[in-house]
C-alpha cells in the first residue's frame, strides 16, 4: 500500500514485523521518533518492529518527510498543490497524509505549504459489514433516511460510509449513488459497487450541484461536513429530493448539538437518523442511533 512512498528504513520493519493491517496511523515528526497507532495505542517504530523504548526508536528527519511527500504526490508536488493547501495529500490508493509545515499565505489565501515538519499517515481499512448493525435504521420501507454519522477523528466514519455503499450494491438495491469524495478517501480498495458514480476532489457545493444536475442520483454520500458551504449543499440536495448519507466530526451527540454550523439543518430536521460511533472498543464502535428528535432508537 505504501510501497514506493515510505523509505525502506520505515517500510520494511512495518511490513515484516508489524503488518500494515494492524496499523491505524503512522506519525512522523521532524527529529522525533516515528509513532505507530495500533488499536488506539501508541508505539515507537524500531528496526525490529514496534517498541516502547525511545532508545530503539527510528527518528524521522526533515529530508525523510520531504521525500515521503514527494513520493506520495507521484513525484509531482505541483499536481497536488490544491490538496497541500488544505493540509493533506491522498495517494492513488486512498492513503491520506495529513501535513504540517510552513503555510505561505498571500492576501488572506493559502498559496502553498513548505518546510514540512510532520506527516500523519492514515491507513484505510476495509471492515466488511461494519455498517450492518445500523443498516435497518438507514433503509426503511419508505426508502433511505437522510443519515449523519457522527464520531471523533479516526473512529471509522469513512469505513462505515464505504461499507454502506457496498452493502447497497451487494443487495442489488436500485439506488443510483453519487459519492462525493472530497479527499479521495472513499473510493479505494475494491471500489464502491455497481451503482456508484464518484466525483473526487471537488468541494461539496460544486460536487452536489454538478452531480445532481448531471447524474440524477437517488442518494448522495459524502464525508466530513463542517463548513457553512457544506450546509448549503446539504439543503440544496434535500430540496432537490435527493437522499443524503454524510458524516461529521464530534465526540458525541451532546457536543454535536453545540456545533453552530449545523443549527439550521438540525432545526429543519433534514437528517432523520444520527449514528454515533466511538473508539470505545476500537474504531467503529457503534454507540447509538438517534432519530430526528434526538431520541435514542437503538443502543449497544
Amino acid at each position: 500500500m505504501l510501497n514506493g512512498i515510505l523509505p525502506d528504513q520505515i517500510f520494511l520493519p512495518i511490513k515484516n514485523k508489524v503488518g500494515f493491517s494492524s496499523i491505524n496511523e503512522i506519525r512522523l515528526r521532524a527529529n522525533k521518533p516515528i509513532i505507530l497507532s495500533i488499536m488506539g495505542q501508541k508505539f515507537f517504530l524500531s528496526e525490529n518492529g514496534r517498541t516502547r523504548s525511545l532508545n530503539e526508536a527510528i527518528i524521522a528527519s526533515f529530508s525523510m518527510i520531504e521525500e515521503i511527500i514527494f513520493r506520495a504526490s507521484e513525484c509531482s508536488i505541483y499536481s497536488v498543490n490544491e490538496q497541500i493547501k488544505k493540509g493533506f495529500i491522498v495517494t492513488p490508493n486512498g492513503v491520506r497524509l495529513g501535513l504540517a509545515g510552513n503555510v505561505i499565505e498571500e492576501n488572506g489565501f493559502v498559496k502553498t505549504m513548505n518546510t514540512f515538519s510532520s506527516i500523519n499517515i492514515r491507513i484505510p481499512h476495509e471492515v466488511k459489514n461494519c455498517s450492518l448493525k445500523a443498516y435497518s435504521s438507514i433503509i426503511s420501507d419508505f426508502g433511505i433516511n437522510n443519515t449523519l454519522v457522527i464520531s471523533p477523528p479516526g473512529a471509522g466514519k469513512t469505513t462505515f460510509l464505504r461499507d454502506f455503499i457496498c452493502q447497497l450494491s451487494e443487495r442489488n438495491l436500485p439506488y443510483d449513488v453519487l459519492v462525493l469524495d472530497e479527499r479521495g478517501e472513499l473510493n479505494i480498495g475494491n471500489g464502491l459497487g455497481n451503482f456508484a458514480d464518484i466525483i473526487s476532489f471537488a468541494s461539496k457545493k460544486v460536487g452536489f450541484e454538478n452531480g445532481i444536475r448531471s447524474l440524477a442520483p437517488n442518494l448522495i454520500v459524502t464525508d466530513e461536513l463542517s463548513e457553512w458551504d457544506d450546509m448549503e449543499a446539504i439543503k440544496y440536495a434535500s430540496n432537490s429530493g435527493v437522499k443524503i448519507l454524510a458524516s461529521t466530526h464530534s465526540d458525541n451527540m451532546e457536543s454535536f448539538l453545540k456545533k453552530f454550523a449545523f443549527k439550521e439543518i438540525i432545526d429543519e430536521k433534514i437528517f432523520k437518523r444520527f449514528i454515533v460511533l466511538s473508539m470505545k472498543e476500537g474504531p467503529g464502535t457503534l454507540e447509538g442511533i438517534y432519530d430526528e428528535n434526538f431520541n435514542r432508537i437503538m443502543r449497544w
Partner: protein
Amino acid sequence: MKWLFLALMFGLCVFVGYFFSMKYKKRLNFYSALILFAQKLDVEINFSRERLKKLIENIDEKTKKNLLGIDNNFLAYLNDNQELTYELLFKNCNILKQDEKEMIFLFFKSLGRTDVIGQTKEIQNFLKRFDDKLNKCLSDNKKYGSLCFKLGIIAGLFIVVILI
C-alpha cells in the same frame, strides 16, 4: 595487399574525423531535445498538471533518442524509490562536460518538487541556461564539426601519399 592496407588506413582516418564531428552534432541535438523537453514540461505542468512520470513517458521518439537515455534514467529514479545520483542520471552519456552535467542534474533534481508557479519559474530559468548552451553548441558545430571531418579526410590522404 598494399592497396587494401592503404584503403583501410584512409577509412580509419575518415572514421575518426567523422566520429569527432558527430560528437558536436550529438551535443547540438541533445541541447535542442533538452530545450524541447523542458518547454513541453513547462506547458503541460501549467495547463494539465499531469504527473511527471506520465509526461516523461509521453515524450516523442525523436526527442527521446536525442536525450541519450537521460529521460529513461530519470524515469527509473522516479519508479524505483532510489536516490538521484550523477551515475544514475548520466549512465551511458559521455558527451557532456562536468559543468553541463551539474546544470542538467540540478534541472532534473528540481522537477516535481514545488507548486506550479515555482516549478514553471524554475524551468524558465533553466531554459535560459540551456539556450546559451545550445548557441555555444551551434557555433562549435559550425566551427569544429565539419573541420574534424575534413581533417580526417586530409589526414587519411596524407598517410596514403606518404605510404605510397
